[in-house]
């Protein structure tokens, strides 16, 4: 079993997608909740969540012996992390199956990346 991060990136501020109707939003939420329930019952669910807007982020940066605290986000990129799942899967194909379901439900690209297998202390 390996853990994978499935992450969804939102397009940057100012480049909003066309506003979804209430019905459309509700459809997406239902689909996503169904997938999450399947992940849990399959033993694949580890953790997951959606993130608030990048404008709510704060960055802490080492500066000499001290740390510097500034308004975020970390990267001045167009795309920002919108949400993520950590799932268990036997192999990449297993992780990709979950990612495909999520990508279809939220109509956005999902990145799948393996976590480093840290040896227990």
């Amino acid at each position, binding site marked *: 079993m*390996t853990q994978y991060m499935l992450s969804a990136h939102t397009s940057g501020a100012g480049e909003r997608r066309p506003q979804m109707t209430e019905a459309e939003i509700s459809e997406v939420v239902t689909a996503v909740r169904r997938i999450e329930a399947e992940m849990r019952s399959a033993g694949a669910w580890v953790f997951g969540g959606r993130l608030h807007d990048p404008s709510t982020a704060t960055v802490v940066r080492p500066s000499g012996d001290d740390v510097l605290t500034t308004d975020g986000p970390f990267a001045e990129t167009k795309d920002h992390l919108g949400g993520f799942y950590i799932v268990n899967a*036997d*192999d*990449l*194909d297993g992780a*990709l199956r979950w990612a495909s379901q999520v990508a279809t439900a939220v109509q956005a690209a999902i990145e*799948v*990346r*393996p976590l480093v297998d840290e040896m227990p202390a």
Partner: protein
Amino acid sequence: MTLDAGAAGRIFREESGRVVAALISMFGDIDLAEDAVQEAFAIALQKWPVTGVPPNPGGWITATARNGAIDRLRRDARGAELVREVAAQANSARPSSEPFEKEPVPDDRLRLIFTCCHPALAARAQVELTLRLVCGLSTAEVAQAFLTSEPTMAKRLVRTKHKIKTAKIPYRVPEESELPDRLRTVLTTIYLTYTTGQAKPDAEADLCAEAIWLGRTLRLLMPDDAEVAGLLALMLLTESRRPTRTDAQGELVLLRHQDRERWDRSLVDEGQALVRWCLRRSQPGTYQLQAAIAAVHADAETFQDTDWKQIFALYDQLMVVAPTPVVALNRAVALGEVHGAEAGLREIDMLALSDYYPFHAAKAEFLQRQGRTEEAARAFMVASSLAPNGPEKLFLQQRAEGRQVSP
């Protein structure tokens, strides 16, 4: 039997894919398998000139590689557990102590092919890894095929294998529900290998030959799949025209000007037999349809005898399963051949493909036939300016200049 380097090389190339696949099955590690097989080859080069080529070279190489891999794992502390696992597996599956020397090496190449052609890998990386692991090309040969240096290609291969290992791309034949999509990726990769070979006819490693070898191997391993047969047929029929594709000066020769006597008849026959087999399956697909089109061309004794009605019908079918600009354009050209230049031009104009050089080339051709020489020359010029460097660009330029192409 005396062994020269050439004969040894041929044996190694022939056996390489099977042995690597078997070793990966045993140890679950591509690098270990690759290194072990390399070492086994080196040992063979030393021993075989003295002892002669063993009766089952594949088995000998597999046994030698397996022993080398086990030795290597023993030296590596973390490998000890793996060695115990392997020993347990081996003992349960094969009671004999000399498992591979006498028996045929099991063919795990299908697993290897599907792994090398996993969609999580970039298209070019799939081709490179397949050439290296399945076809047994050396890193230097793969580098040369892509006009890059050996160290660069070595790095690329390391990165690709790293992705497979770290992201855990599984070493298996996909399950039935995923097989159609995954097979499509494999076929695309093999065909990409072929077309890459076409673009580099002077490369030392003949990628067209490797692609056809892959196609044959896949057909051996999946004898019931129609698209697998279709891809092989397409490559064979395309390859049959190779002797006439360029002239003595290395310049491109149009299909209509190719001397069909010089087409490789045995490849044509083999390709057409496969197409007939495919037709009986009634499971049409993109490669089968493209192969059928190539077969119709091969049926005609001269270009003038070409059955354009059939070709048009096939492109109509192809548009259903693969509605790409290339197909749309070729269909329009076929329509023009059936109904005349004016109809052809009308059909072509409906496709807004102004960035696509064959679009302008096709227009130019029909304009030329209508005697609209100046417009034709302009269209050839546009086509030439859009075309990538190579024989086609040169050819289009010559047409623009009004130079006659050799008959």
